[in-house]
C-alpha cells in the first residue's frame, strides 16, 4: 500500500505549489513553513515507499487511460532506480527549503512565489522519475524546466537573467531533440502506445535507432551537463539562488542522466552498436558519448582548478561528476550502471551540501564568493562550522572512503575498466584533479595563511559573523548524515539498485550487440 502512495509525492508537491500560488501575499511568512511541511511529507512518502518496496522489481503505481485516442496513459511505476532517485528528490527538496529559510523574512522577498515555483519544480522531478508512459515523462520533464527559469531570473545573483535564459534555452533545445525522437518512435511503431516497456519491445530498425539514439541521448545529456553542451551548468549554478543551485545540481541534472538511461538507451539499444567503421578508435555512438563523458570529467576538474568564484568551482565540479555518471551508464555493465545510479544519488547529496555551504552559509554572511577576497577573511577562525563542513563535504566529494562518493566512483571506474580501459585511466586522473581543486578551494577560502593588516600594521581581529541558524544545521545534518550513512553501508541503496539494473533490457546489458 505504501508503495502506491509514491504517486502522492507528485500530487502533494503540485497541490502545495497551487496553494502557495494563490496564497495572499500578506501571508508570505507562512509560505516557508507550509513549503517545508509539504516537502517533508513528500520525503516521508518517498522514504516509506522505499522501505516497503525493498528489493522488489518494478512496482506499478497507477494506470489510467489519459488520451485513449492517442494511446497515451497515465502510467506510473517505480523500479529500484526510480525509487532511489525519488528518495533523493525528497531529500533535496527538504534540504533546499531549509537552506532558503531566509527567504520570507522580509517583505519584497516574494516568498510564496518562490516556494510555489520550487514545489512545482519538485513535483515535475518526482513525476519524471515515476513515469512509465513516455509522453507523461516528457510532460513532467518540461514542467520541471519552466520554474527553473523564474527561480533563477527572479531570485538569483550574478548575471541572473543571462544564466536563467541560457539554462532555459539549453534545456528546451534538449527537450526539442527528445521530442523529435519520441515523435518519430511513436509514428514508426504505429502501435498507438507510448508505454516505455511496450515501445521497447518494438523492433525499431537498426538504421532508425542509429539516428534516434544519438538525438535523444544528446537531448537528455544536455541537461546532465555533458561536454560540450555543459556551458549552461556553471553559469546557471552561479546565477541561481542557493536552493535552486542545490536542486539544479542535486536533482535536475539527474533528470538528464535518468532520461539517457531510461529512454534513450532502453528504447534504442542498437543505437549503441558499432558502426562497422572505426576512426581513431571511435567505432560507435557509445564510444563517442563515453569520450564526451571523459572529456567532461577532465575538463570540469581542470577548469574548476583555476576558478576564482567559489560557486564556479562547485559548478564545474558538477560537470566533472556528471561525466562520471554518463561514463558509468555507457559501460553497459552491471557494476558500471550500479555505480552511475549510486553516483547520481551521492552527487545529488554532496553537490547540495557544497552549494549550501558556499552559497548560503558563507555568501550570506560575507557577501562575496571571490576566493581571493575570502582568503583574506580568516574564515577558518571566523566560521569554524562552515570550514569544517566544507572539509567534510569536500572530502566526500573527492571520493574519500567512508562517504558515498567513494563507493560510486570505484564502481564506475571498475565498469569503465572493463569497457574502455583508457577512458578509465583518464577518468581516474580526473578524480585526482578533483582532489586538487577541492583542496585549493578549501585552502584559499578557509585556511589561508594570509593575515590582514590594517593601516597601523596590526593584524585585524577576526570578524564576528551571525551564528549558524537551526535551519542550516538541520539541512547539514540531513545531507552529510545521508552521505556518511551510504558511504558506510552502501548496500542500503545498492541492494535496491542492482536488481533494477539487472532487469534492464537484455539488449542493453549485452553491450547492444545481439
Amino acid at each position, binding site marked *: 500500500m505504501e508503495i502506491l502512495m509514491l504517486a502522492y509525492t507528485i500530487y502533494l508537491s503540485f497541490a502545495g505549489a497551487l496553494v502557495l*500560488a494563490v496564497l495572499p*501575499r500578506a501571508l508570505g511568512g507562512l509560505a516557508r513553513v507550509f513549503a517545508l511541511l509539504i516537502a517533508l511529507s513528500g520525503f516521508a512518502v518517498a522514504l516509506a515507499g522505499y522501505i516497503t518496496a525493498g528489493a522488489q522489481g518494478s512496482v506499478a503505481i497507477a494506470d489510467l487511460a*489519459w*488520451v*485513449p*485516442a*492517442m*494511446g497515451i496513459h497515465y502510467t506510473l511505476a517505480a523500479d529500484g532506480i526510480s525509487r532511489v532517485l525519488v528518495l533523493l528528490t525528497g531529500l533535496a527538496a527538504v534540504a533546499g527549503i531549509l537552506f532558503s529559510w531566509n527567504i520570507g523574512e522580509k517583505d519584497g522577498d516574494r516568498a510564496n*512565489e518562490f516556494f510555489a515555483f520550487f514545489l512545482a519544480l519538485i513535483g515535475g522531478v518526482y513525476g519524471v522519475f515515476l513515469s512509465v508512459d513516455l*509522453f507523461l515523462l*516528457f*510532460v513532467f520533464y*518540461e*514542467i520541471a*524546466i*519552466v520554474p527553473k*527559469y*523564474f527561480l533563477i*531570473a*527572479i531570485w538569483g545573483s550574478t548575471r541572473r*537573467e543571462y544564466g536563467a*535564459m541560457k539554462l*532555459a*534555452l539549453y534545456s*528546451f*533545445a534538449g*527537450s*526539442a531533440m527528445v*521530442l*523529435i525522437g519520441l*515523435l*518519430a518512435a*511513436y*509514428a514508426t511503431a*504505429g502501435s*498507438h502506445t507510448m508505454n516505455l516497456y511496450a515501445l521497447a519491445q518494438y523492433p525499431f530498425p537498426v538504421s532508425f535507432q542509429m539516428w534516434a539514439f544519438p538525438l535523444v541521448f544528446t537531448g537528455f545529456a544536455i541537461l546532465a551537463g555533458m561536454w560540450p553542451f555543459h556551458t549552461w551548468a556553471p553559469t546557471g549554478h552561479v546565477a541561481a539562488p542557493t536552493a535552486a543551485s542545490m536542486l539544479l545540481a542535486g536533482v535536475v541534472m539527474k533528470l538528464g542522466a535518468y532520461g539517457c538511461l531510461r529512454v534513450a538507451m532502453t528504447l534504442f539499444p542498437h543505437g549503441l552498436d558499432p558502426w562497422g567503421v572505426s576512426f581513431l578508435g571511435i567505432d560507435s555512438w557509445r564510444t563517442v558519448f563515453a569520450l564526451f563523458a571523459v572529456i567532461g570529467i577532465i575538463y570540469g576538474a581542470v577548469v574548476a582548478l583555476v576558478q576564482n568564484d567559489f560557486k564556479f568551482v562547485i559548478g564545474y565540479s558538477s560537470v566533472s561528476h556528471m561525466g562520471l555518471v554518463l561514463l558509468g551508464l555507457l559501460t553497459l555493465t552491471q557494476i558500471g550502471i550500479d555505480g552511475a545510479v549510486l553516483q547520481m544519488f551521492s552527487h545529488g547529496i554532496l553537490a547540495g551540501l557544497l552549494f549550501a555551504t558556499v552559497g548560503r552559509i558563507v555568501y550570506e554572511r560575507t557577501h562575496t564568493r571571490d576566493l581571493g577576497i575570502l582568503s583574506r577573511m580568516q574564515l577558518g577562525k571566523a566560521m569554524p562550522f562552515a570550514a569544517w563542513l566544507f572539509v567534510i563535504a569536500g572530502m566526500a566529494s573527492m571520493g574519500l572512503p567512508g562517504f558515498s562518493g567513494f563507493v560510486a566512483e570505484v564502481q564506475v571506474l571498475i565498469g569503465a575498466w572493463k569497457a574502455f580501459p583508457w577512458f578509465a585511466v583518464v577518468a581516474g586522473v580526473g578524480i585526482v584533479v578533483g582532489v586538487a581543486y577541492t583542496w585549493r578551494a578549501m585552502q584559499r577560502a578557509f585556511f589561508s595563511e594570509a593575515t590582514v593588516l590594517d593601516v597601523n600594521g596590526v593584524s585585524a581581529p577576526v570578524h564576528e559573523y551571525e551564528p549558524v541558524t537551526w535551519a542550516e544545521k538541520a539541512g547539514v545534518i540531513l545531507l552529510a548524515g545521508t552521505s556518511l550513512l551510504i558511504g558506510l553501508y552502501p548496500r542500503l541503496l545498492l541492494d535496491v539498485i542492482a536488481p533494477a539494473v539487472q532487469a534492464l533490457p537484455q539488449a542493453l546489458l549485452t553491450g547492444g550487440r545481439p
Partner: protein
Amino acid sequence: MNSLVNAVNYSNLFFLTLPETILEIVSLIVLIVDLSWLRKSTRAARMTAACVIGVLGCLVAAGWLYAHPQAAGIAGDALVSSPLVAAAQIGILLLTALVLLLSIDAEFSRNPGEFAAIVLLGATGMLLVTAARDLLVIFVALELLSLSLYVLTAFAKSSAQSAEAALKYYLFGGMSAALMLFGFSYLYGLTGTTNLTEIATALSAQRVSPLLVVALALVAAGLGFKVAAVPFHLWAPDTYQGAPAPVAALIASGSKVASFAVLIALTDGIIVSRPHEQSSIWVVLLAWMAAGSIILGNLGALVQTSVRRLLAYSAIAHAGYMLLGIAAHTPQSGAAVLYYALTYALTTVGAFGVIAIVERSAGSDRLDAFAGLSRRNPLIAATMLIFLLSLAGIPPLVGFWAKFNLFAAVLRAPSASYWGLPLVITALAASAVSLYYYLQVLKRVYVSKPPQNEHSQIAPLRVSSIEVLILTVIALAVVLLGILPSALSSWIPLG
C-alpha cells in the same frame, strides 16, 4: 454551376444557413437598438449593450449548431455540414463572443453599434467560409470576412496607426483576393466546374499543365495572405500593431480558424485520393510556405520590442506549423490542424486581452510596458504566463497537445514520407527558439521591477471585473484542455 442551380433544396439551405442568418439578424438588431433607443446614453452603456446583444447572438447560433449536429446534409454541394465543420463554426462563434466581451471596456470607438454589427458580419463570413465547398461561395464569403476586417482595423478613427494598418491590410488583401480569383478562374477553365468535389474528379483525369501550376500558385497566394504565411505575411506585423486590440484578436483567431478550414477543404478538393503529380505541386507549395513561415516567423519575433508585433511574427510561425498539417493531407492531419487552429486562437484571444489591459494603463505595447505586471496584478500576470507558455508549447497546456498531435499526424502521413521528418525537425527546433521571445515577455512580467509613481508605490492596473472573468475563464480552459485533452474529442478526433 448547374448542380448548384438544380439541386438546391431551399428548406435544406435555410436550416444549413440558420446560424449565419441568426448572426445577420442580430447584427441588424444591434444597429437598431444602438441607433434608436440608446442614442442619448453614455458611450460605455452603448458599448456594453451592443456587445452583450452580439454575444447573445453568437451563443444562440452556437447553441443551434450544438443542438443540431448534422441538421442538414448538403445544399447543392455549395455548402456542407459535417461534425468537423460544426466544430470549427462553434469555435468561431465562441471566439467571436469572447472578443466582443473583451471589447466592452475598449475605448477606441465612438460607434459601438456599428462595431458590434460589423464584428457579427465578419463572423458570418467566417461561418460561411468554413462550410463552403464551391469556389464562388468561398470567394464571396472570404470577401465578406475580409471587408469586415478592413473596416474594423480602421475603427480607431482618432489613431493614425489604425488607419495605416487598415490601409496596408486592405491593399495587400485586395491584391491577394484578385490573385486568388484569377487562380479560381483558371481552375474553372481547366475543369468546367466550381464545385470542389467535381474539380477533384476532373483534375484526376488530367495531366499536369502549366496552367494548373499557375492556378494553384495564385490560389496559394490568396490563401497564404489570409493565414499570414511567408511570403504573403508582410501585412501581419503592421496590422496586428495598429488595429484596435479586440480587432487584432479577431484577425488572429476567428479569421485564422476560418481560413485554415477552407484550406483543408481546398486541399481535399485539389488532391485526389491516389498519389498524383497534381497533388505534389500543391503539397510542394504548401511545404515551402510552411518552412518559410516557421523559420522567418520565429526569427522575426526574436528582435521585436512591441508585444503585438511579437505575437504577429509568432502567428506567422504558428501558421507555418499548421500548413505542415495541411500539406500532409490525411483526415487525421486535417482534424489536427483544426484542433491546433482553435486552441491557438483561444490562447491568442487571451493574450490580446492582456495586451489591451496593459496598453490602457501604459499607453504602449512595448515590452517594457509589461514590467512588473506580476506585482501590479498577479492574476492577470498568471493568465499571461499560461497563454504564452501554451503558445510556446509547454506541457501540460493545450498548445503542447495541439503541437504533438499535429506533428504526430504529419509524421504518420504516407504523403509526407520525404519532407515530413525534416520539416517537423525544423519546426521543433524553431519552437525551441520561440521560447526565447515568449520568455522575453514573461521576464518583464515576473522579473523586472514595476514602474513606481512619485510616492514610490507600485502603480495599480486598471482592470474591469468582466476582463478578469473572461481572461480567467480562457486561462482555465487552456489549462484544463491541457490536462484533459480528450475533452474535445467528441468533436475533433485526436490521434
